């Protein structure tokens, strides 16, 4: 097989494994690559967006519409859902996402500290399952976020590890299940709540986690 053959074969392999094709000059094969893409896209069951994706993009758009000045200058605006408007939702979003769910995703504002929902986000592996065994707290730095990941009540969770007072990086104390601020006598529980003390502080924002291929991943901004 020639170099071009191997390149096209690699392109095909990636598509069939549902991976992004590798970076490589297309040479004379760009039309063949596009035909391969069309053919692969026609396989049964591939072309419906996943409910998780539809959800996540809705959140990103909501964030953008709330925070970017461009959105308020344009004619297009947010609107609270009216009951009647929902009939079309189920019909048009054939992704299996329920109308109720979509309404919730689109209209519930992120309240309080809440969960960090980066506008452009990516999953980054920051720990092994071993690192988050009960009784352990793993520190990480990813996508510009300083965080900690751990298991609480049988669930893997992550929190921002930046003190909501003056931005000092919190120090985990696994034995006490707490995060201590090195700048002031202040600590946070693993629920993210500040312990009562001399300061009244906002809770720590949560960071989304998932387990993928034996690693613990967190959802962080993709800009950095």
């Amino acid at each position, binding site marked *: 097989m020639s170099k071009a053959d191997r390149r096209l074969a690699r392109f095909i392999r990636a598509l069939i494994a549902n991976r992004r094709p590798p970076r490589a000059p297309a040479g004379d094969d760009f039309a063949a690559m596009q035909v391969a893409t069309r053919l692969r896209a026609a396989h049964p069951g*591939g072309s419906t967006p996943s409910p998780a994706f539809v959800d996540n*993009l809705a959140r990103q758009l909501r964030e953008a519409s709330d925070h970017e000045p461009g959105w308020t200058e344009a004619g297009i605006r947010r609107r609270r859902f009216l009951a009647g408007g929902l009939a079309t939702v189920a019909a048009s979003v054939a992704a299996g996402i329920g109308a109720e769910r979509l309404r919730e995703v689109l209209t519930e504002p992120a309240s309080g500290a809440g969960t960090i929902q980066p506008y452009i986000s990516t999953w980054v592996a920051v720990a092994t399952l071993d690192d988050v065994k009960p009784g352990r707290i793993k520190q990480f730095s990813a996508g510009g976020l300083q965080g900690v990941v751990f298991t609480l009540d049988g669930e893997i969770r992550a929190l921002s590890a930046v003190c909501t007072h003056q931005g000092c990086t919190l120090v985990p104390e696994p034995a006490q299940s707490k995060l201590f601020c090195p700048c002031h006598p202040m600590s946070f529980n693993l629920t993210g709540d500040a312990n009562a003390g001399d300061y009244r502080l906002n809770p720590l924002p949560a960071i989304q986690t998932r387990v993928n291929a034996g690693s613990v991943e967190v959802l962080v901004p993709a800009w950095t």
Partner: protein
Amino acid sequence: MVGGPARPNDWESVYQEHVAPLYRYVYSRTGNTADAEDVTSTAFLRALPRLRSDVSAAEIRAYLRTTARSVLADVWRQRHGTVLMEFDDQRDATQPPEREQDVDVSPILEGLPANYRSVLEFRFLRGYSIRETAAAMGVSVANAKVLQLRALRRAAATGVRDVEG
């Protein structure tokens, strides 16, 4: 609703109505989930803030597609150093929207020799491995590997001829 009188749009309704169709459109040009999700996201994030509130559903659909195409072109340029050629855009434009979920590849397969068609069907439409494809076709693994490349290149050449003709 398509082409109907403009009622004021809000982005949530626009999103609901267009996310699945746009994703399908993008997926048919990326063939993998990760790229399809990235391109769809970027297209919505770019296009929605620029949409006026009084445009029709058909205009929104066209604008989203145009935006998605330019994002796709960037992906191809960066990854493969080539310009994305839309050899069947004419057909797209005339296709009613409810048909766009059927990705019709019969024009690609039509007119190919039977063994070329078979290898493409096994590999791409059924997702067979090379080994499985070879077994199904009764040829050697090396043979199946070469056959899939020849079949793709022939199909590509035929597609380009169709547009020119």
